[in-house]
């Protein structure tokens, strides 16, 4: 038998791969992380809200030294129609005290910092190298082939942390077919503005406090689209995620959509005078629980986006990636103790995920993608109704309030239909029960 080059080889140095590498290296396990980018983070696009708790377990108080932009004190939800905006959200001083709940970050900087920590823990990070294939012995994964000369590496277990397009899970046949309904195309711009201007426009009292806005509604026509605006220190992350199927079906040019988004009367003043510094596009796996691949095989585990672990409604992805990376690493540590890396042993990885909030949350929302596929109007027609009703109630035009309520109810009956509303309430209740 061939000698192993490393105990574990991790493919991809995103949050999932780095977290796994960190846990393993801290246990003294020899681990290599192979990344195709020139450095970890160089290929990563993220709107940029990072939840603290998952990484805090690994590196307590990491936020005190990591490159973060602002801690988030207010999270808003906006519903947009052509000319109006309905706003709701939560701002709390509880979000304004350490240890904060979440932060806006730039992945290029953040991942680089995280990678340094992982390297200091003595994991080996190999950049600018692409894993081209798995090396198999029967049905057992025993290593990887890279694009480099003399580029084969052997190990006990390969952890696939290679992101949404995970070529490795596909090549092992673990992945279900990814449909255009399962992935969203995300577009994002970084718009530079002086920090003082951002503080004023978003109503925060200092340049370390930040705000997030998630946006949907009839303004995005019949698309399953969610827009976002996040405050960084000297810039805004602004973008849109649209389920690719809708974009194809409605023949929408993503750039036009982004421009339309930026020109909305509620968005425009936020970015006015700003300079677009960067523009990026990336896929987000939004298929949820039912789109997950099989998470393990002999000598093989799948983590992060490669495993489709994204909770799109709560824009949780990076934290789930970290959580899954930790579980995979711990599973390896247990397997090493008994010297068995078969599916049977590694299946405890899935068990760990299932017992944690990661798969519990994904299960809660498991029917959501299907629900929105069938009833897109839940995020267009209903928001439109709310916006119109709100507008009516605040518009003083000498029509009595009771008359207005009657008008609104009639509108609900005409546009939505009472029976349909009941049906929709029931189906949402059934799906999230």
């Amino acid at each position, binding site marked *: 038998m061939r000698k192993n080059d490393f105990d574990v080889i991790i493919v991809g140095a995103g949050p999932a791969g780095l977290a796994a590498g960190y846990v393993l290296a801290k246990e003294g396990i020899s681990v*290599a992380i192979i990344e195709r980018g*020139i*450095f970890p983070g*160089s290929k990563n696009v993220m709107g940029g809200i990072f939840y603290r708790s998952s990484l805090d377990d690994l590196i307590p108080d990491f936020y005190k030294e990591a490159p973060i932009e602002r801690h988030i004190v207010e999270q808003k939800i906006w519903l947009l129609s052509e000319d109006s905006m309905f706003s709701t959200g939560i701002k709390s001083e509880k979000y304004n005290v350490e240890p904060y709940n979440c932060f806006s970050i730039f992945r*290029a*900087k953040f991942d680089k910092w995280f990678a340094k920590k992982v*390297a200091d823990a003595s994991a*080996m*990070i*190999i*950049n*600018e*190298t692409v894993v081209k294939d798995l090396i198999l012995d029967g049905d057992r994964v025993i290593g990887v082939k*890279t694009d*480099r*000369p*003399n*580029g*084969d*590496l052997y190990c006990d277990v390969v952890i696939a942390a290679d992101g949404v397009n995970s070529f490795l899970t596909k090549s092992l046949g673990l992945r279900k077919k990814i449909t255009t309904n399962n992935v969203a195309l995300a577009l994002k711009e970084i718009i530079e503005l002086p920090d003082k201007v951002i503080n004023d426009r978003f109503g925060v009292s200092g340049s370390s406090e930040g705000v997030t806005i998630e946006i949907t509604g009839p303004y995005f026509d019949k698309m399953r689209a969610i827009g976002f605006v996040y405050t960084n220190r000297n810039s805004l992350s602004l973008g849109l995620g649209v389920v690719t199927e809708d974009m194809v079906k409605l023949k929408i040019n993503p750039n036009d959509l982004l421009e339309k988004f930026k020109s909305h009367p509620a968005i425009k003043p936020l970015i006015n005078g700003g300079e677009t510094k960067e523009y990026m596009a990336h896929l987000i796996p939004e298929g949820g629980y039912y789109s997950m691949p099989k998470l393990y095989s002999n000598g093989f585990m799948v983590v992060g986006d490669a495993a489709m672990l994204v909770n799109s409604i709560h824009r949780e992805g990076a934290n789930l990636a970290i959580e899954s990376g930790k579980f995979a690493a711990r599973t390896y540590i247990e397997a090493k103790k008994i010297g068995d890396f078969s599916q049977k042993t590694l299946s405890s990885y899935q068990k760990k995920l299932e017992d944690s909030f990661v798969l519990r949350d994904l299960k809660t929302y498991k029917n959501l993608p299907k629900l929105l596929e069938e009833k897109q109007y839940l995020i267009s027609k209903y928001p439109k109704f709310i916006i119109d009703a709100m507008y009516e109630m605040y518009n003083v035009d000498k029509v009595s309030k009771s008359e207005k309520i009657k008008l609104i109810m009639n509108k609900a009956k005409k546009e939505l239909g009472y029976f349909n509303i009941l049906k929709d309430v029931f189906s949402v209740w059934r799906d999230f029960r």
Partner: protein
Amino acid sequence: MHSLVFIKQVPDAAQVRVDYHTGTLIREGVPAIINPYDTHAIEAAVQMKDKFGGIVSVLSMGPPMAEEALRKALSMGADKAYLLCDKVFAGSDTWATSYALWAGAQKVIQENGPVDIFWAGKQAIDGDTAQTGPGLATRLDIPLVTCAIKIIEANPEKGYIIVQRLIEGGSETLQVSMPCMITAEKELNDLRFSPLPDLIKAVKSSVQLLNSTNTTIDPAQCGLKNSPTKVKRVFIPSKRERGEILEPSGKEIADVLFEKIEPVLKQMGRV
């Protein structure tokens, strides 16, 4: 054969922007790379090693993050890496830099033996002076070939190398004795795609730090204060006015041109 390559870490010029208020470069967030010409110097040195055996040392002066550039050089096949890193070097011009690098080179020679060929890029893309290589050759008191585009023959046994270099409007071929200093153009070679074991070796190797205490460097010859170059002013060149385009044809054009040129020539006292 022992080669010593001098390299510099520079901001990726393709991604640098100018702050039009202050006239300075915005380096924030711009990835740092090895000066592109230097990468060809490294490759040339590694090719020498592949052919004749021996080792390749690399030396850089810069902030702690320049270690990344040295690691990259190791992954390209270099064997030993040294970083001159000390506050006393800050703000050095090309004169002071070549002094510090020269002193650093003495340390490298002490540890790895005499050097046959010193290499550098022909210039750094951030300063574009092309003076450090020649400055080093002068201090080392050895023959210098700048702008090398081809190694025609190397003969370490007899101690010479024949190099083709770029000159204005063509090229010339020089034979110099070793030790010598060669500065590289990009045409000198094609960079290799390093094998994986070299990348792994690079991560595992350490970069040795040199400073004013562990070398014989005289701080009185380094840094901004001791640099003879003084920056008087940094400015953005004003945009050149677009020239006038004349469209008449035939004999007419000569007349029109003459009318334009005559007053200028008169002003210059030429007619």
